[in-house]
């Protein structure tokens, strides 16, 4: 009967061994490693940035650095960091998701967004439409999305940052259309008009989400649904994602449509102090994020269709691709991300009510 004791002992030994091995592997590395936990569409950008930064850091300090990447919907990624994914830096789709990490853990200070210039966003983006070749459904602006027979593809706002920007852009568009001037939002005398505009926005966004056949968990999943699986007539997408899809996936098969009004999306970056300190990577992590603001980082951002915060460093041909459009901001229209999240996306918020009623 000895075997009965031997078996659990062997199992335990194996598990403990595996844990110990992974622990040893982490501490024994001489060339330094960074983990950048990012959102979905930044894959191509950070592949180039990581290579350029590694060369930059090697030349500057003589130390080899490998930056590892993890990508997914921004909400999901923030959740993973809260649950213990040991990110040295996070580069997510919106400030709220990094706020969530600061709120649920003590891994970084709550005022993280003040640590780097431009609200810690080295590049910005916006939301545009991607349609099929020749624009068969004649989609020019937000109102065209609600015409009969138009199916819309957008990811799930619960897990995807891009999806939340999509939602808020649509909402902001209706407010702008109804009110004309968004300063009325802050004018107590116009309260009745604002309430009517908000009601119109609710109807508009409800109708919009009733036309979404598939909710993917991240922006890249939605792009694949639209592009590869051929589902839907229009994809609400990050500007960078739309241009990438239009340029790389069978040029000429898709067209980018720029609406009259969209939202200024600021995807922020920050060091996760706790893990960087733990891994001894604080300095290189800081340098990595600063590199994003450097002329080289800015040029790479523009090349990958992100709007650089210092356009003077980017190539003129890259900049020429960005269309001029009217951009609203989350702070102006929604009172900042905390409030937007609470009102629209938290459990029991507007988005939940829309989707519960419509389906």
């Amino acid at each position, binding site marked *: 009967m000895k075997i009965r004791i031997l078996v659990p002992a062997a199992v335990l030994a194996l598990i403990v061994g595996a844990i110990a091995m*992974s622990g040893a592997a982490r501490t024994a590395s001489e060339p330094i490693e960074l*983990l950048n936990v990012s959102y979905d569409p930044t894959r191509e950008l950070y592949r180039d940035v990581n290579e350029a930064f590694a060369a930059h850091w090697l030349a500057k300090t003589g130390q080899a650095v490998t930056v590892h990447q993890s990508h997914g919907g921004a909400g999901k990624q923030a959740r993973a960091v809260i649950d*213990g994914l*040991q990110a040295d830096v996070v580069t997510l789709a919106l400030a709220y998701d990094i706020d969530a990490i600061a709120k649920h853990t003590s891994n970084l200070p709550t005022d993280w967004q003040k640590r780097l210039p431009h609200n810690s966003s080295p590049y910005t983006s916006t939301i545009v439409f991607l349609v099929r070749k020749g624009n068969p459904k004649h989609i020019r602006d937000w109102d065209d999305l609600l015409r009969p027979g138009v199916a819309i593809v957008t990811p799930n706002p619960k897990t995807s940052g891009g999806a939340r920007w999509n939602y808020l852009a649509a909402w902001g568009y209706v407010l702008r259309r109804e009110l004309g001037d968004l300063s009325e939002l802050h004018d107590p005398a116009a309260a009745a008009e604002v309430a009517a505009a908000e009601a119109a926005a609710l109807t508009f966004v409800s109708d919009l989400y009733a036309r979404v056949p598939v909710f993917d968990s991240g922006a890249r999943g939605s792009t*694949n649904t639209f592009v590869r699986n051929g589902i839907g007539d229009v994809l609400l997408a990050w500007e960078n994602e739309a241009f990438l899809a239009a340029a790389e996936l069978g040029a000429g098969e898709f067209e980018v449509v720029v609406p009259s009004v969209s939202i200024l999306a600021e995807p922020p970056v920050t060091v996760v102090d706790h893990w960087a300190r733990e891994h001894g990577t604080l300095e290189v992590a800081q340098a990595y994020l600063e590199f994003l603001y450097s002329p080289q980082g800015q040029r790479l951002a523009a090349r990958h269709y992100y709007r650089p915060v210092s356009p003077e460093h980017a190539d003129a041909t890259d900049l020429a691709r960005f269309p001029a459009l009217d951009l609203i901001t989350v702070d102006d229209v929604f009172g900042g991300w905390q409030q937007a999240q609470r009102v629209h996306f938290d459990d029991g918020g507007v988005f939940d009510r829309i989707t519960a009623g419509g389906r």
Partner: protein
Amino acid sequence: MAGAGGGHRAAPRPRSGMSEPAPVRRLLIAATLVVAGCVLVLPLASVFAEALRGGLGAYLASFRDPEALAAIRLTLLVAAIAVPVNVLFGLSAAWAIAKFSFPGKRLLITLIDLPYAVSPVVSGLVYIMIYGANGVFGPWLAAHDLQVIFAVPGIVLATIFVTFPFVARELIPLMEEQGTEQEQAAMTLGASGWQTFRRVTLPNVRWALLYGVILCNARAMGEFGAVSVVSGHIRGKTATMPLQVEILYNEYNHVAAFAVASLLAMLALVTLVAKAVVERRAGAAAAQITTTEVETEPQRREAP
């Protein structure tokens, strides 16, 4: 899956008593072939077609990518830990359940089946709740600088969980059917517990065991759901082959995605072939046992 082990026990029955009219038979066969073709063969073929779309050079180049190699290595490592663990567990559990009676036996059998019933996503989340930063053991693990979730140990644990029943489920029905007579005989002749197990029990179940190992291995290498939840998706570090397929696909790198997928498909084919071989051998072994039993039966009755 649970009933798969029964395959080699069902002897071919003579079907002379029933016969459908030929057209019906042909229609049924054709319908089966069409469905099997659309559901099974076509997707499998398309995996290889997509993988080879850019030519053999591009296909092979996909495997020189360090991230793909890391994914293959990690998958092999995970299977190399999960399969032996489940073999040890499956053997001991099946032995205990089939050869002894003890309180809680039914409960244990039900527990073994749990991973079949639970969605892999849930099993992944449960590990996060236990070993994650905010989990039950989270603070203790952090204090000792150990990382389970979003690292290799978490992937191994999740894989062990989902492949838990495969070996035990193959062995239990066979061992129960075989009964304890041979073991009792061995014991009577003075064999120790370990000798009995090694010389009598193990040889009797070796084909079912192998069958369980094959299925367990296929699932361990192919598991997506539970592993996806606990992996953290760090490319080159915590991405197994199925996760790497998803990453590559999401990066519009379709040739590479389907190249890695083709490895998994080949694994499936190898599994099927191995399974067929084992089934045939097991069938032969079972037939042999039956004939010996029949021959020895009269002598045993005469003995007392």
